[in-house]
């Protein structure tokens, strides 16, 4: 009963921190999705001027730990170039996550686009559609549905990876849980925290499943 009361007492603080977790993962994944479409198209482009930068970008952001990218944006950059000092911790985390996740999503989108049968592009071209029209009207809409499971997977990873923001003193659900655990010397707090995480991943899994079903009507 006492333990239960404690958990109830912690809930408002935990839910507050959950807000940071949700806001950060949702905003950065959406931004990353937009960015990654361009990166993916760049990577499969026949023009070197587009292909090389996209390839280097993906190589860099997949090849270094997100934790260090976060550190770099928040601590290193301001020391090198003071005008790039980001005062908002959330903004710094949002930028780091968007840039990082975009690199992963770019690979997912590239794979999805390349998994579409070559005949689709040929049919589109033979009907006089331009490359851009063929991509936007024929290829990418089909790639959408194939992207959803890996994107959902990536999103849930991000949801949990947001715990990295503790290094820039941004209090997300994981860090808040640790704070409570150490300040009150109680490890009970991990129970409600894990339940919240499960609820979040559960809800988003349902959302993504619905979306996938909706986009599968033609199959």
């Amino acid at each position, binding site marked *: 009963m006492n333990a239960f009361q404690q958990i109830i007492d912690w809930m408002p603080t935990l839910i507050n921190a959950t807000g940071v977790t949700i806001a950060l993962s949702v905003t950065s994944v959406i931004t990353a999705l937009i960015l990654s479409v361009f990166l993916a198209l760049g990577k499969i482009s026949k023009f070197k001027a587009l292909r090389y930068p996209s390839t280097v970008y993906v190589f860099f952001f997949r090849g270094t730990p997100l934790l260090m990218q976060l550190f770099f944006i928040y601590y290193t950059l301001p020391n090198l170039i003071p005008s790039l000092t980001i005062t908002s911790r959330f903004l710094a985390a949002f930028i780091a996550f968007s840039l990082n996740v975009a690199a992963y999503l770019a690979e997912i989108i590239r794979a999805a686009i390349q998994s579409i*049968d070559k*005949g*689709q592009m*040929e*049919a*589109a*071209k*033979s*009907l*006089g*559609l*331009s490359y851009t*029209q063929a991509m936007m*009207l*024929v290829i990418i*809409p*089909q790639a959408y549905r194939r992207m959803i499971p890996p994107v959902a997977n990536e999103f849930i990873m991000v949801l949990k990876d947001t715990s990295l923001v503790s290094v820039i003193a941004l209090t997300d659900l994981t860090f808040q849980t640790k704070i409570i655990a150490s300040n009150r010397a109680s490890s009970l707090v991990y129970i409600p925290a894990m339940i919240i995480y499960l609820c979040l991943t559960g809800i988003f899994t349902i959302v993504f499943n619905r979306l996938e079903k909706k986009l599968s*009507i*033609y*199959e």
Partner: protein
Amino acid sequence: MSIIRTVDLSKKFGTLEVLKDVNLEVNSKEVIAIVGPSGAGKSTYLRSLNGLEHITNGEIYIDDELFDKRVHGIPQVKLDHAKKVEMLLRMGMVFQRFNLFPHKTVLENITLAPIKVKKVKLEVARKQGIELLDRVGLSDKVDAYPSKLSGGQQQRVAIARALAMEPEIMLFDEPTSALDPELVGEVLTVMSDLAKSGMTMLVVTHEMGFAKEVADKVVFMCDGQIAEIAKPNEFFSNPQHPRAKQFLGSIL
């Protein structure tokens, strides 16, 4: 007047020469069947005509206008984009594996290009699309998705889709090869009707019956070259080229 004419057209994949100096003329309202053993370069030839494969050497004329000319793979003509698309659209293409857009309904498959490329109004495009579907006997499948159709039905939709761009000539790349035998007939019927209506057609096919009955000329290709061009009854009763004799002997 010729709709399509190729002069010394050749195509190499690396060092492999798949087309060697192919010269062919397709005249208006003519139906030409290209036959021959697999690997003869029939499909590559057809795909070269509308730019799905880039030729290595030779010239392609459409309506006696130079469409493409290359020497060692380097283009010798530079058409502006709009002109190129306009000339490309004088050819309609039907693929072996249909290549319908699976995320669009049957009608949307047909109206997509007229609306986006020719800027036809939606209502006009839909009306025309329904007429075309009626013509290929699928007016009841307007709102179905391709996955709900049989192979034969899908290929008929693909024919209607190509016709929607109002081409002068239809290119068929083995249109019945991917179909179950019992579905071949319905597609051939649509193609025969199309031929009777006066459409110019260039058909790569293994259906000798169709070639015999519908085609005005049979072109026999082997080893990347045209070995023989003849009227169907002459070709099938008295082939001249030894490879043609061998080929007909093996399939009849």
